[in-house]
């Protein structure tokens, strides 16, 4: 495959963008997160009376100036109906990330060396739901010509490429809740291997609709005991946790080949130094014993990064607030870090924004980069009484200033798919 021989190139993060339940904009969201604010609330966008879970993390509605979303400020009305909300959120996050990076190739070569890899766990579920309702009523002729391109997962990458003229690799990831990390890791590899010099990469999700909530309720995956106190519902590792809280949003980063970034004087947030993947081969929704798949993904990521566990000071956990998953992930991290776990901070930012499914890994990757930049571990909200003790500091309730040079972020998905990515402070 690589007949001419090659050595992998270094990859850095030069732009970031977020739309999530804490609002729009990386700095706005990060400030709120460090302050311990929560973006979880009662679902207002549809009737939840027949559903056991009635809460979610939704991108707040409002004006751009207030860090909230009025989609008409971002996408012309006539184009909005051509894309499901997950694609709209991807475009919002991509706009911030691309502008932040300052990357605007003026020639064809530059455009052809810039690719896009934005994934989604579920894609245009609400769009599919609406179209199927027409079909059930016998109104197939009323189904929009934009139905399919609005619902397809890879259209997030497609729409971003069309908007900016980025003609490099156009790809998409679909690995349930591991999507975001896979997108960042795979995109970094495309740059490392020479397929592109710049990749706009991330994840987007907007499955907080009747069908989406009903589906996860049926799988008994969601928190149902905190409908009256939504901000307490996402409580990773706490003994009172009873399932995850669905969230929506998008995280997009601009990844760039290091020498090019340096040459053009780009602001470099961090370097992507490691990436590891594994499969559980165990169960469609439950993690394997000891989360051994997660253990192997983290081990592979650290190996490719060339760092030992003691050199990693922060882990952004998958930590969804489910009774089974949280302690198994903790067990895998304890096993891998051993005694070095004493110096480790591990938190779950899902405690503040819920579980963004296919967008989670991308948004949490950005939080990991910010943890390195600002030398602070974001908090695990609602961790009042851990279901078990650990030598690992899980950053309960309040952010902690810490020396963080290397951070690892985990994401695991249904089907038994695991991914870990490692960032280091800017070279």
């Amino acid at each position, binding site marked *: 495959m690589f007949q001419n021989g090659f050595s992998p190139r270094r990859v850095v993060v030069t732009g970031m963008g977020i739309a999530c339940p804490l609002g729009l904009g990386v700095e706005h969201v990060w400030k709120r997160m460090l302050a311990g604010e929560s973006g979880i609330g009662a679902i207002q966008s549809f009737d939840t009376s027949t559903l056991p879970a009635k809460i979610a993390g939704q991108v707040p509605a409002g004006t751009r100036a207030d860090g909230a979303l009025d989609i008409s400020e971002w996408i012309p009305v006539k184009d909005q109906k051509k894309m499901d909300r997950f694609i709209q959120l991807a475009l919002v996050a991509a706009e911030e990330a691309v502008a932040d990076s300052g990357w605007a190739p003026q020639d064809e070569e530059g455009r052809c060396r810039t690719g896009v890899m934005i994934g989604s766990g579920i894609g245009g579920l609400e769009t599919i739901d609406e179209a199927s309702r027409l079909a059930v009523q016998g109104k197939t002729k009323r189904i929009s*010509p934009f139905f399919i391109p609005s619902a397809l997962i890879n259209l997030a990458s497609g729409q971003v490429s069309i908007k900016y003229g980025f003609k490099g690799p156009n790809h998409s990831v679909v690995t349930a809740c591991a999507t975001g990390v896979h997108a960042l890791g795979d995109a970094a590899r495309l740059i490392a291997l020479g397929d592109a010099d710049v990749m706009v990469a991330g994840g987007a999700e907007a499955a907080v609709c009747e069908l989406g909530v009903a589906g996860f309720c049926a799988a008994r995956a969601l928190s149902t005991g905190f409908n009256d106190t939504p901000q307490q519902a996402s409580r990773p590792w706490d003994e009172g946790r009873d399932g995850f809280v669905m969230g929506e949003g998008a995280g997009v980063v601009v990844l760039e080949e290091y020498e090019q970034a340096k040459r053009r004087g780009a602001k470099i947030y961090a370097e992507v130094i490691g990436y590891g993947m594994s499969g559980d081969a165990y169960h469609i929704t439950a993690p394997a014993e000891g989360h051994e798949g997660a253990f192997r993904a983290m081990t592979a990521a650290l190996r490719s990064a060339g760092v030992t566990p003691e050199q990693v000071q922060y882990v952004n956990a998958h930590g969804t607030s489910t009774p089974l998953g949280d302690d198994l992930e903790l067990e895998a991290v304890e096993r891998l870090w051993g005694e070095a776990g004493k110096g480790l901070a591990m938190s779950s930012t899902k405690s503040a924004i819920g579980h963004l499914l296919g967008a989670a890994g991308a948004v949490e990757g950005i939080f990991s980069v910010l943890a390195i930049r600002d030398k602070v571990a974001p908090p695990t909200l609602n961790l009042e009484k851990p279901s078990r003790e650990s030598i690992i500091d899980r950053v309960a309730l309040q952010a902690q200033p810490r020396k963080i040079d290397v951070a690892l972020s985990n994401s695991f998905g249904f089907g038994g798919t695991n991914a870990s990515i490692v960032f280091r402070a800017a070279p």
Partner: protein
Amino acid sequence: MSDTAEKVKKIVVEHLGVEEAKVTPEASFIDDLGADSLDTVELVMAFEEAFGVEIPDDAAEKITTVKDAIEYIEKQKGE
């Protein structure tokens, strides 16, 4: 301008996101109003819905301007 013409114009403005002044009878959806082939399919569906008429594919293909649409709909409605 007839009621049908007014209504057609309004639908075109809404669906294609263009200024009202640009929606002249001679304006071509694709050449003048920035529509692509999927936009025109959707536009025809919107006409069908709004006027309660059926526009078969072979007829829809011939509707390329605002005037074409108004004339076809008026004929269907026997106006």
